[in-house]
């Protein structure tokens, strides 16, 4: 008979060991999945986790991609983690990401032939505003009408996707693109581009800001009263209210911050790696960032590491589909599996497992 005994306080060891354990378990289960698909599991795992970094043939291309993919994931996940800690569930980051990209690109394209170095900062500001605005819809509906923010933020993703489709064949379409959908290529317009800053590293402005945001979030949570309020509201909502923390203010703040960061990530993506507004420029970073936030234990430093790992699975997945013919969808299932294992082993953090029979009924 297995019995669970609640720990008086979460185990510090398991707090850090569970993500590692979850990754190992996912590799095992993923290996089984790849074996079922008829691939050599060891080869598949090596292609995903090892080759992108250390294979002589691919590493020169793959290594820079690590930062390119981790940047937006970390930016979004840090924002989400603040809300998740306070029990505010913004799961519509994908929509805020899209809207940030649209707002930023629209400002840039409206100023199109102008060549000054102020265009790019203005686009970043517009991107942040776009994401913030899109997140404010569920936030205000939550504070004013007590509407469930999970459902509203998620449903708004579908709305944002339709707006994106409309923009890329309508308002923002490249007038010189011969009628093809998609905007001008922003990454090729010097005033709007978000280039690779140091050749061969993949470092762009979004990655630098991701690092800045990680540090800022760390300080906020460890040293600032607001960070304390966020943690308090999540762990003891009643105590927080007695301490004078306004739940509504916290909702507006957490949703706004996560939306702004997601919007910023969208703008950096659309001016850099993806280059243009098109129907499918978004690749689901907003959803994957949810896994990143949990894998990083809602801790900024943890998210930094989790973001890099998740970026690795993206790159490794591409490599595996190229080299071994592993379906691209397999990597999505793999990432979902990681979240399952993470949630399952999380039990070890809060409970002790005791073996042996007990008298009382469970």
């Amino acid at each position, binding site marked *: 008979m297995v019995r669970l005994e609640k720990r008086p306080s979460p185990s510090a060891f398991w707090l850090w060991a569970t993500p590692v354990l979850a990754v190992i378990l996912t590799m095992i289960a993923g290996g089984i999945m790849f074996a079922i698909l008829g691939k050599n599991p060891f080869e598949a795992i090596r292609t995903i986790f090892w080759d992108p970094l250390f294979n002589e043939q691919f590493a020169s291309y793959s290594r820079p991609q690590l930062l390119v993919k981790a940047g937006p994931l970390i930016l979004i996940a840090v924002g989400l983690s603040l809300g998740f800690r306070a029990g505010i569930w913004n799961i519509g980051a994908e929509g805020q990401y899209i809207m940030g990209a649209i707002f930023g690109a629209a400002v840039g394209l409206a100023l199109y032939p102008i060549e000054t170095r102020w265009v790019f900062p203005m686009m970043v500001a517009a991107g942040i505003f776009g994401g913030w605005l899109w997140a404010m819809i569920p936030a205000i509906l939550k504070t004013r009408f007590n*509407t469930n923010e999970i459902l509203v933020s998620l449903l*708004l993703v579908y*709305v944002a996707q339709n707006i994106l489709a409309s923009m890329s064949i309508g308002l923002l379409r490249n007038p010189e693109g011969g009628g093809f959908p998609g905007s001008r290529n922003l990454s090729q317009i010097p005033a709007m581009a978000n280039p690779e800053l140091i050749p061969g590293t993949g470092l762009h402005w979004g990655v630098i800001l991701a690092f800045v945001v990680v540090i800022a979030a760390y300080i906020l949570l460890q040293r600032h009263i607001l960070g304390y309020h966020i943690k308090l509201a999540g762990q003891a909502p009643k105590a927080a209210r007695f301490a004078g923390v306004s739940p509504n203010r916290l909702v507006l703040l957490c949703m706004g911050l996560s939306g702004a960061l997601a919007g910023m990530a969208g703008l950096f993506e659309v001016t850099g790696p993806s280059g243009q507004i098109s129907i499918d420029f978004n690749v689901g970073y907003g959803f994957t960032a949810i896994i990143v936030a949990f894998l990083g234990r809602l801790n900024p430093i943890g998210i930094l590491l989790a973001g890099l790992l998740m970026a690795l699975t993206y790159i490794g997945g591409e490599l595996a589909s190229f080299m071994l013919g592993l379906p691209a969808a397999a990597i999505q299932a793999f990432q979902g599996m990681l979240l399952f294992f993470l949630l399952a082993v999380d039990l070890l953090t809060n409970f002790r497992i005791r073996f042996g029979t007990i008298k009382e009924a469970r």
Partner: protein
Amino acid sequence: MDLGGINPAILIASLMVASVPIILAALGELVVEKAGVLNLGVEGMMIMGAICGFATAVATGNPYLGFLGGALGAACLSLVFAVLTQFFLANQVATGLALTLFGLGLSSLIGQSYVGIKPPLTGTVPLGPLADIPFFGPVLFDHDWMVYLSIFACGAVWAVLKYTRMGLVLRAVGESHDAAHALGYKVVRIRVLAILFGGALAGLGGAYISLIRVPQWTDGITAGAGWIALAIVVFASWKPWRILLGAYLFGGITVLQLNLQAAGARIPVEYLSMSPYLITILVLVIMSSGKGKAALNAPASLGQNFHASR
């Protein structure tokens, strides 16, 4: 009788078809939430039902077995949710999201070899001369069996929850798991069964999309239907009959905008296709404004994990 190129009889008939997946998924989720569990993985379970149903129907050539396969596939996925939340005491919101992310990935993985295949046809229920009645014939008596099943399921869930001992125990577990546990009811067992039931119904709904409504397999075929089902449960204030109402309202808007697209309305297609989501949000706002959780009729233990300390 035509209104701007749209025939009302066909409109109503097709809105009944459009709302079947939502009715089934929302009914399943209602039972789950009545037991005090918030499963946000409806979208993932629906899409697993869609692909498992499709695969089974193509393999056996029998659409009925397809629906069974869809229900089973989704129930298997919901079992993962049940184990994680009931035995591993994982956060229900996070686990539900994981279910959706995993379901979307796995379904498109399974579905790769099924793109472009036609599933076996599901015929309409032969109701003889009833189908020939003008207006009412096509609206009410010319559907496949799932349309009738969804309405019947609504009544069955309502009756079971309201009049049977099983329904009473289920509601007790959802209102206060500690009290139910003290009375000797097996909280975890009841919740696991409710989650499996919810998964099976979501799977039926998903299979309906891929086998009848569309009918073919494409990635992301459910397109947010699971999330709308979750919203409909709130709209219905956890009452089965109101789910029918909410789903028909939603189905009506979906069908109307599709018809407007086909009729060449001056509104761009993208704005028409986003309308169902916007209306769902609007309805959610109206339902939850100015009311607390209690006034909304939400189960009191919704979303809380149960761990018997003794």
